[in-house]
């Protein structure tokens, strides 16, 4: 048996370590994708650039977009935003499911990290990866085409909010999925179609009226359209309407995710 004063000192030490684990969890999540940046950043940049080169050249003569804006320039913001959205989703969802399946999520669940800190760390890290890929796609696309920058603030706002929305969806998917297969279903049957049908490669004004109206039911359309407005100063929908819709979706999903985390859904049995 040991001396009571030594035990008291240990308790005192534990009480003094009152700092938050948020910063470290965020750092760890960023480091996690950065250590494999070739796979998590460079590969998606390459994919987007291939889309740009192939669709930009093949479809250019057949698709009319905004006035004098060349088609290849038109699709760059769509591809950048698509990359931001898909990689934000991929980061939070894959990190969580990997940690769940390998069992190392326990290292995050044991420390005194609140569910809000947990949520913020995963979402911010995912947005950082989305932005890293988006910037990469934008920089590489400058080698092929000049793209105007009408309003950088709109670009930044939509990139961050859109990335956060998809990162939040990724948190839900990562916690919900018990197998990689389920996550792939989420990604391939929900995220991918909604992104591809959101006007990345076309203006919804060029669609028949019915499909144009259907596009307006897709929240991804507003993220991409608002983001594109930041480059060209023109868009299919008002950027304020797009902003409002993105904010509402983000708020609803965030509240839902926080409630699930607070309950320990699928994390704390």
């Amino acid at each position, binding site marked *: 048996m*040991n001396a009571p004063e030594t035990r008291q*000192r240990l308790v005192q030490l534990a009480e003094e370590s009152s700092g938050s684990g948020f910063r*470290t969890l965020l750092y760890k999540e960023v*480091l996690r994708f950065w250590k494999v940046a070739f796979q998590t950043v460079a590969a998606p940049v390459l994919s987007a650039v291939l889309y740009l080169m192939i669709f930009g050249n093949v479809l250019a003569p057949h698709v009319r977009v905004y006035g004098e804006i060349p088609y290849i320039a038109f699709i760059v913001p769509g591809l950048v935003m698509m990359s931001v959205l898909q990689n934000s989703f991929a980061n939070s969802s894959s990190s969580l499911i990997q940690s769940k399946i*390998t069992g190392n999520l*326990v290292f995050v*669940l044991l420390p005194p990290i609140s569910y809000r800190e947990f949520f913020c760390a995963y979402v911010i890290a995912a947005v950082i990866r989305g932005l890293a890929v988006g910037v990469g796609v934008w920089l590489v696309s400058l080698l092929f085409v000049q793209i105007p920058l009408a309003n950088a603030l709109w670009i930044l706002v939509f990139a961050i909010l859109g990335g956060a929305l998809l990162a939040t969806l990724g948190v839900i998917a990562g916690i919900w999925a018990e197998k990689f297969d389920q996550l792939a279903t989420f990604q391939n049957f929900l995220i991918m179609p909604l992104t591809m049908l959101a006007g990345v490669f076309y203006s919804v004004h060029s669609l028949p009226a019915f499909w144009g109206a259907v596009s307006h039911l897709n929240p991804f359309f507003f993220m991409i359209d608002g983001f594109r407005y930041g480059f060209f100063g023109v868009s299919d929908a008002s950027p304020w309407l797009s902003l409002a819709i993105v904010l509402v979706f983000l708020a609803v999903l965030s509240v839902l995710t926080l409630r699930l985390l607070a309950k320990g859904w699928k994390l704390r*049995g």
Partner: protein
Amino acid sequence: MKALDVSGAVKQYGNLRALGGVDLAVEEGEFFALLGPNGAGKTTLISALAGLVRLSEGTIRVMGHDVVDDYRNARRMVGVVPQEIVFDPFFSVREVLRIQSGYFGLRNNDAWIDELLENLDLTSKANANMRQLSGGMKRRVLVAQALVHKPPLIVLDEPTAGVDVELRQGLWAFIRSLNQRGHTILLTTHYLEEAETLCNRIAMLKAGRVVALDDTKTLLRAVDGHALRVKIEGPLPAGLPASERDGEWYVWAADSYDVLVDRLGALRAAGVKISEFEVGQPDLERVFVEVMRRAA
């Protein structure tokens, strides 16, 4: 103050009652064993005190902090070595330990991390990726991760499974020194001789209930722990029936040496020629088997 105070802990998974109303207290400074067969509820109880599982009923307090209402303080007070070998394949040993320290708000913890690496014989592997380590090394990293924040209560859920004898001894020497330095230790293990040697108090769980809880010495005395084993020439006199027969050995069990000495004296007085005899010490395995049998 109690290091751990479990009160009316119930955990229901559908129709399965993993914990059926557990009451348990571990005093500060104890080296406490939680024993039981597979499925007894040990890991569920540990998960509940660590905040990984939420109780259906009851409360758990760690160093006076409720693990639900005051989870931040409760989790600062406890370090858990999980049963499964789990690791993050992205990081080196040192990175893992720095990250784990950071989760507890400890930014400059390298001195203690170095001490942990040294004591757990991991210094040479500090910069190796977790994937490069053997199973035993990974388990020692798990121990280090549980200790990075110097928790007053250390919970070890079968920490020596798959660890070779030499490393096991080193690990126990280190854990014992931590106990001497003030840490309370809660241990689950299937190696009962480890619990018998190390722990001053033992609780036994069966089907989610505590079926025995006492000092190790008292528990060992509770079952007929001493055994006199005798080989004789010729038949055993009818008036001196043995407790059991084990091949050529006759066995008499008793809860004290005095009874066994009397038994030996009776054999000699009856003219029995003893060719061999030995006195068995009480051991936890017998106690465990007996307690589990009685609790059936």
